[in-house]
């Protein structure tokens, strides 16, 4: 393709990408460098149905003048990134100096909100992604060997967890695992422990969220693998059978290598999706035991009494960087494959 033709061909998607991806990310980044103007406070008398009190209030006239002059706020550089609620540079350094061993150091770092969220986000990502791959592959193999009549209904049922909206799915499970719900009560009966509660212990909450993640995402891997299985050449399989390969050997040496591009594809999508884990934490009311980077952003924007645009922006940029780091190995692999094919 000529360069000129290529340019006109790519132009619409280039414009869309700049408008809907590059510009928003740029604006979020700029926002993250600013904090609000210093509030001009004055003590005034405020009264209500329960009496009067002298309290500090914002001097609206003086503050709004500041805002009009510089609507973005006060430039803070990377101050929001390094403060205690994000990368906590000073706190991490102090923890290093004051800890006598690794265990104390890690518990001190884990006490900081950003690293606590990062710990869960990474654990979730690195457990859910491989489990989804394995489970999805197993389901695909199982469905593929079913008689033709049963395939349709089985595929439909297997896809259900993905069809349910994540927030609704997690809310339904939240009530089922309640100590009076069907799953929670069954577990109590099974382990003969009337005090067993999945919502109470942080460890059990993590396990529950990870199981939920696998349950929700496995159908995606399944349907991709199932489509891939339809393209495995039957000649190769038959040849392997003639050579005396067992079912396991055929799967391991014929089918799996054939599906490698799909494994890369699913890993890519799942790493991105799982790193942005959010809905189950809200649905399971799990924020006391597990938070994620996306949950922190949500909490800055809608969780409390005020909105923290700078904080939300900083965490968003850090999340984007995190996704980029995670995807590098997969992207390098794809790049190498591409070059090999081109050569």
């Amino acid at each position: 393709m000529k360069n000129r033709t290529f340019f006109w061909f790519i132009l619409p998607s280039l414009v869309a990408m700049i408008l809907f991806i590059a510009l928003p990310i740029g604006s979020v980044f700029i926002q993250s460098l600013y904090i609000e103007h210093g509030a001009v406070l004055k003590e005034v008398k405020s009264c209500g149905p329960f009496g009067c009190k002298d309290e500090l209030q914002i001097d609206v006239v003086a503050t709004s003048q500041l805002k009009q002059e510089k609507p973005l706020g006060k430039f803070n550089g990377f101050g929001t990134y390094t403060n205690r609620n994000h990368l906590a540079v000073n706190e991490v350094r102090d923890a290093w100096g004051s800890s006598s061993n690794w265990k104390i150091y890690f518990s001190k770092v884990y006490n900081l909100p950003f690293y606590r969220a990062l710990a869960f986000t990474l654990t979730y990502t690195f457990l859910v992604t491989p489990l989804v791959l394995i489970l999805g592959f197993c389901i695909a193999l199982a469905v593929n060997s079913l008689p033709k009549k049963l395939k349709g209904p089985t595929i439909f049922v297997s896809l259900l967890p993905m069809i349910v909206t994540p927030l609704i799915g997690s809310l339904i499970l939240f009530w089922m695992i309640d100590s009076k719900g069907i799953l929670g009560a069954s577990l109590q009966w099974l382990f003969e422990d009337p005090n067993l509660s999945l919502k109470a212990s942080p460890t059990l909450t993590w396990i529950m969220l990870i199981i939920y993640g696998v349950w929700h995402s496995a159908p995606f891997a399944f349907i991709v693998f199932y489509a891939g299985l339809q393209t495995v050449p039957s000649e190769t399989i038959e040849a392997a059978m003639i050579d005396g390969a067992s079912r396991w050997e055929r799967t391991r040496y014929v089918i799996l290598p054939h599906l490698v591009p799909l494994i890369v594809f699913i890993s890519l999508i799942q790493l991105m999706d799982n790193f942005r884990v959010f809905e189950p934490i809200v649905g399971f009311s799990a924020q006391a035991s597990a938070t994620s980077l996306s949950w922190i952003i949500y909490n800055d924007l809608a969780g409390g009494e005020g909105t923290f645009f700078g904080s939300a922006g900083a965490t968003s940029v850090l999340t984007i960087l995190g996704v980029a780091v995670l995807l590098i190995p997969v992207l390098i692999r794809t790049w190498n494959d591409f070059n090999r094919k081109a050569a």
Partner: protein
Amino acid sequence: MFLKKVMVAGALIMLGNTAMAGCGISSGNVNVLSNDFPAIQAVTAGASTCAGDGVTVKTNLTKDHKDIMVAALTANPAEYTSVITSNSTLVTLMNDGLVRSLDDLVAKHGGGLNPSQMVTVDGKIMAVAFMANAQHLFSRSDILEKAGVSSIPATYEDVLAAAKAIKSAGLMDYPVALNTKAGWNLGEEFINMYMGTGGDFFKPGTAEVAVNNAHGVATLNMLKSLVAYSNPDYLTYDSNATQAEWEAGNLALATMWGSRGGAVMDGEGSSEAVESSTVLSSAPTWGNNARPASTLWWDGISISSNISDEDAEATFIAMMHGISPDVIKANNAAAVWLGKGYTPSKASAGVSATAAGGAAPYPMLPFMGTLHSALGSEISDFLQGSESAEQALSDIEAAYTAAATEKGFLQ
């Protein structure tokens, strides 16, 4: 302009637009944003009767009102002409100058109001309060009697003793509940309990937090002693969950919102035994202090800055109809009303007793919400036993300081 006309016309059709005389408004738009619970539904329904003859009344009742109000009122003209505010949300709106002074409107149309309903800041009326709310003690007299507890607990020490008696009598494993869902609810429980110590949240005259002290440690320890008698799932309990547990008869002692009193006593969703033995009393005191460990809240009417004076007047008149004595009389049990026409009921006994006992109002400080958020996210570690009270308090201090710096309250 055309689009606006189409929207107004559409709204008129949707409202069924029956011409109603009696409000005395000739024209104007009324659009109310508020939280969603029965008392507010009664108020907005009352205001809606003013629709007709060139007057439109629209309402948006949503639990997420806090998240949209600032953006909606910053627009000029504002999307909503009125927001039903409380102690905490009024400050947020005032911080950006989004609500107007009501002095003129009250002088002109507020003749039927009680003086105590006026919320004034720096001498200007910024809101008209119409109901009071507070968290207070709900007790089950039958369970207490069976456990050999002779009187309704007046202090949290009594609550703990009663809970122990109930548990050791084998009546209930988890007799106690507070609204302890991590986040806003848990932060509110800390604030209530800390209020009972009489301590200040901030160093006087500054935005510097001051909860990292002996009062703070005692507050955390009291909360931990209480949740030891709560269901292990307590960190997921919000006010809907505690009400459901109460109505199911699973609790004997709970600190819940006064506005839930009417719902618990309404003859629905609960058994006769639970309802007839539910006693509402003042929020307990603790640690030999006199002040009930609770915060008093009001809900009131505010009017947007960025609207025409005509719309502001129409909105004020319509809202005065929403909180008129007729509406209050017809919905007497739905809230502790502050206006004329209210007769105290059994369902409001707890809030009245808490206010009479000298509980303090939720602080109307611009940076209180920031502290509230920090409290809500940093306490659960301590309650779960993974860190000390001192560590939790210094975490709260650090989280607040970072957030308040970003908000411009600390330099």
